């Protein structure tokens, strides 16, 4: 499979008259770990649901492993792992029974991996799922998703409810296993440090639009924060070439995020007096883009 395992083009979705996604496009490279970041209510979960064919977009198309998301075949489903935000399914069963039950649907099910993880995380197979803590339940969901040896793994804010240590453990496991098997991963989060820890690419949703898609390694070279003082701000033209966001500060100045193509020059005001050129960290960049 040479193409993108998960992509969408021109997605538009409206709920009760409110636009939730506006012309959103995304394409995941095979083997990439893609972090989808955005504030609460930005549309991350809706986008994931549309990408997986769980929701129908008003317009646009979503494709999973070269098949329309709304008509995914069983062959594709067997190569797809999914971890929801709050995995509560089959909560009435025991851990071992649930994993056996789900494993029967996947020919590539990795039972030794399941047993190893349960042992490593000290989760007894005989425990009822409903009695597990949220962190343990999230770990079980991750084991379940990774044990199918997925080619594509989608996680919807997998670590949102976890404490920092549990979150780090979970993400480490995700990065390790996905890296070993070359799995393409898409995970949504609003915690920037999670992105820095595992993601190879980052996408940012803001105000229902995709405002940033970039490889993590290139961010510093391709994105800049221009701090424009108040005098210079008055003289600036409307929109700069490559401008992604513009925020007026309390002192009357402007904070502008600009992007350039690799090797290209920065937009004109970057070197002028009254304009401070900064190379923003990921957190600053996301805050500027979404504030």
């Amino acid at each position, binding site marked *: 499979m040479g193409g993108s395992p998960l992509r969408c083009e021109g997605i538009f979705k409206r709920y009760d008259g409110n636009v939730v996604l506006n012309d959103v496009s995304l394409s995941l490279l095979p083997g990439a770990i893609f972090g989808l970041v955005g504030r609460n209510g930005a549309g991350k979960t809706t986008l994931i649901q549309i990408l997986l064919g769980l929701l129908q977009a008003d317009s646009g198309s979503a494709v999973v492993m070269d098949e329309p998301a709304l008509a995914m075949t069983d062959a594709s489903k067997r190569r797809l792992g999914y971890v929801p935000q709050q995995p*509560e399914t*089959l909560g009435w069963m025991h851990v071992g029974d649930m994993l056996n039950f789900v494993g029967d649907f996947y020919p590539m099910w990795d039972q030794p991996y399941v047993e190893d993880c349960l042992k490593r995380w000290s989760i007894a197979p005989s425990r009822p799922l409903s009695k597990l803590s949220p962190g343990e339940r999230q770990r079980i969901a991750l084991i379940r998703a990774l044990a199918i040896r997925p080619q594509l793994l989608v996680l919807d804010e997998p670590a949102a409810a976890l404490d920092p240590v549990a979150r780090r453990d979970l993400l480490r496991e995700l990065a390790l296993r996905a890296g070993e098997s070359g799995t393409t991963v898409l995970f949504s989060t609003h915690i920037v440090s999670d992105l820095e820890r595992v993601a190879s690419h980052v996408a940012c949703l803001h105000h229902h639009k995709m405002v940033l898609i970039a490889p993590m390694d290139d961010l510093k070279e391709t994105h800049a924060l221009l701090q424009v003082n108040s005098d210079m701000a008055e003289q600036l033209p409307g929109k700069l070439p490559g401008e992604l966001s513009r925020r007026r500060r309390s002192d009357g100045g402007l904070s502008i995020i600009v992007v350039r193509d690799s090797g290209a020059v920065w937009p004109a005001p970057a070197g002028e007096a009254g304009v401070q050129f900064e190379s923003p960290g990921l957190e600053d960049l996301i805050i500027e883009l979404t504030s």
Partner: protein
Amino acid sequence: MISAAPRELLATFGADHAAMLCIFYVYGLGSALLIGSLEVPAAVNLATGMWVAGSLATMTVAAVAIGRFTLSARVLRLPGCGRVLFRSYALLLTLIVIIPIALFRIFIPEGRELIWATLAAPLGLLCPKLMKFVRSLPRLEGGIPSNGLPTETIRMYIGRAFAPVSFASAAFKLRILSLVFWSVPLLLTVANGRPRAAQWYLAITAILVWLWFMNALAQFIQCRDASFAELALLPGLGHPRSQRWALYCAALAPPLLACSLLAAISLILMSWKPDAADQILLHGLILLFLLLAGAGVVTAQLFRKDRTRLTRSGLLLQLSMPIYIWPSLLPLSQHSPSWFKYTILGLLFAGMGGVAIVAWIQLRKLARLPHPFLDGT
């Protein structure tokens, strides 16, 4: 602005259990009062009996919810949890015992003696502890193969009440044993020529069976995004349309079959009465209407392309079941209601069902309010 006590109660129970409690409470008490105030002797007995059963069910769910809250409070070391629990218990008992007895005394002046049985409702708090002795999880014994029936897979996802069990499992033996114990009083009452008592027995069984299935379905629907998504992405369930059809079959068939069986036994008992032909016809018409309405909802859902948007209609259909079941199992005697009052009863049930659904939706909105413990932080 909502005062602290109901918010504390809501936080103590959690949205899912609180939604169920609200449905039991509004539907049980409201229907009982409305039916009881019609001043039909048979209906007054039904109304009070129904409320007593409803109050027990409410208390049982409350006990489960409170147990869950206490466990979380212990893990999180929540401050002031004892006082919150005390206030929640006090509010609960006021709602379940004191207010209903007062309302029954005001609105149903005659034949409401059975309402004092509500005083036994707090015993429902012991139910979860008692259930631990008889509960047995269905063991899968190798699991369901991926080439198995989609409906069977979906039933596993809906919950314990719907899960298929193998003949060799402990759960199956327990069910058979329960059936045997259940059928003894029924056979005894019929053999002693007391069809009315048998119909009471069937009516109470139908309510409990419906609550059992509804509880599992409500749990499944409460976490609907995650549950449906995981189910929809499971291989082997086919095209979204066939998957949706299988989900309806799985969700509707077991409770409908169980309750229809009970209704059929009740109808057979009813047919012993010489003047029951009209009421049997009415039952038939109501059942036909519900089946057609249900078929319409299901058919409309089958034309959708996405995989997860079907819950509300399914839920409404499920909630409409007791509208048929409860009046159909109405014990008939020489005091049985007239055609007119009988139809009014059905409409009242339907109306109260609507109120319960609105209450459910409102409660879900309330559940999104900040936790009372976090106020002022």
